[in-house]
């Protein structure tokens, strides 16, 4: 019982900290919109020649949501590094709680924050001509949760290996861009070189983008076009993300135990 109560206490602290930081909430909302506008406007005209039967902004929209989830989940797990740097981690580590509950509390915190923030992004759907049914929103939210949990796992693993916020930031920079560009958010991965296929299949973001794209575009454009764009059925994407999360969280807990 104490195990769950301490997870809850750690989770709640993350949420309070997030809620206090209004600048962070607002800026994490505008960054993806900027991406969508700039890339959408810039590339849609160029890409009409290629023509994959769907408006480029609509194509990119699920990718942008996934990118937002990734960025925020990573950013939220930095809190572990900050805690270490500012001494608060010591307070947590000398408490009579298990390391596993600390790691899980942190991961659930990042998952909640990233999913809620991504949910806000759905308000722009009508403006770019994407209709959202309530069932679609529910399905999307489920994948937002799965994807952010998987990313929190990576973030937590890295932050338990890092000593300072600076090195964490550096590692994130190195990871975030390749993960984003090789996720299928910008272009379909159905017809790319082999090396890109291999890397993209190990990238959890690929599965998140793939699932969200199907959920959002289903019924909006013809099934034929969708089939040309997607990689796996939604359930496969879900299973991969669950498996990936479990491995990452386990590794993070191990690293956490070893560090302290």
């Amino acid at each position: 019982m104490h195990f769950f109560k301490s997870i809850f206490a750690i989770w709640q602290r993350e949420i309070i900290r997030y809620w206090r930081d209004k600048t962070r909430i607002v800026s994490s909302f505008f960054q993806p919109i900027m991406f969508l506008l700039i890339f959408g406007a810039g590339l849609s005209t160029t890409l009409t020649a290629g023509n994959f039967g769907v408006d480029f902004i609509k194509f990119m929209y699920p990718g942008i949501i996934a990118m937002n989830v990734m960025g925020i989940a990573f950013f939220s797990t930095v809190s572990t590094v900050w805690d270490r740097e500012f001494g608060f981690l010591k307070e947590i580590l000398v408490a009579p709680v298990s390391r596993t509950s600390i790691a899980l509390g942190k991961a659930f915190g990042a998952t909640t924050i990233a999913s809620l923030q991504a949910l806000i992004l759905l308000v722009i759907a009508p403006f770019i001509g994407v209709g959202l049914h309530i069932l679609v929103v529910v399905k999307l939210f489920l994948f937002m949760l799965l994807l952010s949990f998987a990313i929190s796992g990576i973030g937590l693993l890295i932050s338990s290996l890092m000593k300072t916020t600076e090195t964490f930031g550096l590692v994130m920079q190195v990871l975030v861009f390749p993960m984003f560009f090789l996720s299928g958010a910008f272009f379909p991965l159905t017809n790319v070189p082999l090396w890109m296929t291999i890397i993209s299949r190990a990238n959890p973001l690929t599965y998140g983008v793939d699932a969200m794209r199907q959920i959002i575009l289903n019924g909006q454009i013809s099934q034929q076009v969708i089939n040309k764009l997607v990689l796996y059925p939604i359930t496969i994407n879900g299973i991969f993300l669950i498996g990936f999360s479990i491995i990452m969280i386990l590794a993070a807990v191990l690293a956490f135990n070893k560090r302290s």
Partner: protein
Amino acid sequence: MVNIIEVKNLTRKFNGLTAVDDISFEVKKGEIFGFLGPNGAGKSTTINMLSTIIAPTNGNALVNGFSIIGDKDEVRKSIGLVFQDPSLDDRLTADENLCFHARLYGVPKDEYNKRIEEVLKLVELWDRKDDIVKTFSGGMKRRLEIARGLIHYPAVLFLDEPTLGLDPQTRVHIWDYIMKLKREREMTIFMTTHYMNEAEYCDRIGIIDNGKIVALDTPANLKKMVGGDIISLTSQDKQTLKKELEEKYGKEVKEEDDILKIEVVEGEKFMPRLFNELQTKIDSISLKKPALDDVFLFLTGRKIREEEASSKDFMRNFMRMRGR
């Protein structure tokens, strides 16, 4: 009296460097036990071992009857800790910080609100309960940390340099709270310091140098080691005075320039006698009681390096200002 901490042959090495070297001692229930020594002497390493943050290389210790190696969780529940460096979440309110702590320590919900009120009133922060910690001064943060360490009713409170980096006035204040804890709750307090004047508040002091305890006793007894009080006198008629002192009290009189010095027991009681009994006219008189500085100097042959400490303090304060 019952021992609340029993340390046996505790040793900690870092890459071949011995930070704590085979120390053994006991802390009695209800006393303020102080660890006095320069930076790097092994004070914090000892506290870190006793609070299960790091494992000893050798030896063991019992805290509240639990082994720091085998019963970590029980030890953790038995102790409250105030770290050398700040460890509050400054984006949370005072209340939220305490609440978080209470929940991690498994204090029941219907109980912790009562306790939060109790400890916050003790350190006089009750009216700031709902303020974000970021707005607190260094002294207030330290008080809040002490309050936090008490929420789960620990058997021992560890204070690692509780007044480091605080201004003199705040330091006195912090000490008022510590003494109040001892008086009103009979709390056992284990503290480290490198401020000599603060060590005087302790019931017993262990002087630690290079990882070893070189002396352990009450402040008064420690000071007896270096000899008695020194009374310095000056007079126009120095030689007559010297002679009179030697004849009347059988004391050895040392001459330093114009000043005559004698060593006595309990100088504050000896001085009135001199006023009444001396025939020779004296111009001035002063008393110097031995301080713990002298004890440290006597035991180790050197002074506690305050300059080194102050540069570290400076860095700490700088980091505090920068961070939180």
